């Protein structure tokens, strides 16, 4: 069951596919699901996500679950792995995903969204991750290393099992700093606490981040203080607000400052997933800022 755009139509053939589950495994606090989806794997660029239908063929759950891709591999023609927090989430849809077994089918749309922008030159990159969101940084790290960039990791979480990918980060990173709130792994504290030090020690030229929205907010602010560009993936915001992942429903909007200085409500799924951290009005998420284009006040009141 693949979508029906024909060759030469200019359409992305296979943007929606029915993928076979290869494995679902528990990784520390999270679940990792690997799907056989060659069309997705082939086109994937780091930072992109997939939108999964949950509940099976006759499901009454119409909202797609948007998950950043952790890794693609050439096995079986092309596989795609996603990481999600089922135990910490109250969403029965993620529960359904966690309950899949090998050879089950999952309806996948992807790859979707704007990827991480890559530096032209071999510069120092700092990759900051929190919780399951850190998964989105590893494909990026591979690509950056192939471009001869230096890759430094800063990963955080509540406790050791909540820090995704600490071991891989230590293996592939030029450096890897880990912080936990309870001190069970690495330094005690939060990403925010150690970020200035890590930026200085790594001589970072650019900061990439994926994780809880609060973390993205501090990363963007600190990067800007240091005069560094930041590229952040608003995966968590999309998961909390979006319904389709493909730009149709307009429910995943957040206030973004444009090149012209005007704030517009932009879609996380199509204008993101990766955004410039300094363009997001983090303090105004979940609101319509009064000076945003088309804000109610600007119309002189009323709905």
């Amino acid at each position, binding site marked *: 069951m693949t*979508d*029906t*755009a024909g060759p030469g*139509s200019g*359409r*992305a053939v296979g*943007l*929606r596919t029915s993928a076979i589950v290869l494995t679902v495994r528990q990784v520390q606090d999270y679940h990792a699901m690997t799907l056989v989806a060659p069309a997705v794997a082939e086109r994937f660029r780091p930072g992109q996500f997939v939108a999964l*239908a949950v509940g099976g063929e006759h499901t*009454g*759950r*119409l*909202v*797609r679950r948007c998950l950043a891709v952790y890794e693609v591999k050439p096995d079986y023609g092309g596989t795609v792995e996603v990481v999600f927090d089922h135990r910490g989430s*109250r969403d029965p*849809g993620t529960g359904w995903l966690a309950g899949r077994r090998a050879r089950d089918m999952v309806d996948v*749309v992807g790859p979707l969204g704007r990827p991480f922008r890559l530096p032209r030159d071999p510069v120092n990159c700092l990759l900051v991750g929190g919780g399951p969101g850190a998964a989105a940084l590893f494909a990026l790290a591979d690509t950056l290393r192939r471009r001869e960039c230096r890759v430094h990791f800063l990963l955080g979480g509540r406790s050791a099992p909540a820090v995704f990918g600490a071991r891989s980060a230590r293996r592939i990173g030029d450096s890897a700093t880990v912080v936990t709130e309870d001190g069970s792994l690495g330094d005690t504290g939060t990403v925010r606490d150690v970020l200035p030090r890590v930026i200085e020690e790594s001589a970072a030229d650019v900061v990439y981040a994926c994780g809880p929205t609060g973390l993205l907010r501090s990363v963007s602010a600190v990067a800007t203080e240091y005069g560094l560009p930041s590229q952040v993936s608003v995966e968590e915001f999309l998961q*909390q*607000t*979006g*319904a*389709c992942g*493909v*730009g*149709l*429903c*307009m*429910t*995943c*909007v*957040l206030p973004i400052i444009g090149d012209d200085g005007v704030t*517009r*409500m932009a879609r996380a799924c*199509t204008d993101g997933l990766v955004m410039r951290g300094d363009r997001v009005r983090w303090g105004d*998420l*979940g*609101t*319509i800022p009064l000076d*945003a*284009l*088309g*804000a*109610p006040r600007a*119309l002189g009141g*009323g*709905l």
Partner: protein
Amino acid sequence: MTDLTTRLGTLELANPVLTAAGCGGTGRELARFFDLARLGAFTTTSVMLRPRAGRPTPRVAETPSGVLTAMGLPGPGVDSFLETDLPWLAEQQVPVIVSVAGHSLEEYAEVARRAQESPAVAAVEVNLAAPNVEDRGRMFGRLPGPAADVVRAVRAVTRRDAPVLAKLAPDVSDLVTIALACVDAGADGLSLINTMAGLAIDPHTLRPTLAGVSGGLSGPAIRPVALRCVYEVHAALPGTPIVGIGGVATGLDALEFVLAGASAVAVGTTLFHDPTAGPRIARELEEALSARRIGRLADAVGLAHRLPPQGHVGHVPPQISPPPGADERRTEESKEKLP
């Protein structure tokens, strides 16, 4: 070969499967999945006079077999729509139905007047669920009077060859009377239904889930309500084309609407779950008709009204009767229209 062509007044469509207003994006998002020319028509998001940011997030909650949304009619405004969205749609070889909305009669008319100037606009749909500032923000389509006023204002500024469709929500005490008023005011067809009001409360935060508190329910959850609306209105106005909307997810769902009296169906929430649904539903509907040896879609429109009831001996199947007075009004109306 099943003949899927259908008519909405003067507008002939190659097939009866349309997108529902506000659910097909600008068209570009769907065009990544299929050629829009395979749709019977593309309905735009409701266009208003000025840009609107809409409601804060969260705007959507998943509910059983549906979604609850509080969008606040976000959109770029008519200028930007005419400059960027419509020219692109005009190149897609698909009939474009422009949905218009406003806070006042003047705003509806102004948007419709400007949109209908483009030959790319095949029809105008009037979203009567927009809040009326003069009626404490309650929707125009709540009562026959204001609904008819809006339709009359839009019809007056719209090209003769572009049908005007009045789109109604089901949360009203007497839908048939409102539908009759819209047709009397010049509506060439009716789009039934818009979302119905609902509420979700998050048991963890103990608060309404949506930033807008209440929202509009859509998806298969409302399909029986939509079907009842189409059936009742078709019974009262058999000559008026109806676009059936509400939870259409398969060809058989579309067939139900056609049998109830719809000349076309529009697909909304299903697109969020399956962006390829439009052409799929058209194909499934074609298969469903041919499996029933119905050669022309037009022959199936309203067929459920005409077939004798089926049932066990002595069992009288329940009938949906039009509200009292609907028949008289229809007779009066058809008398009026006689030359």
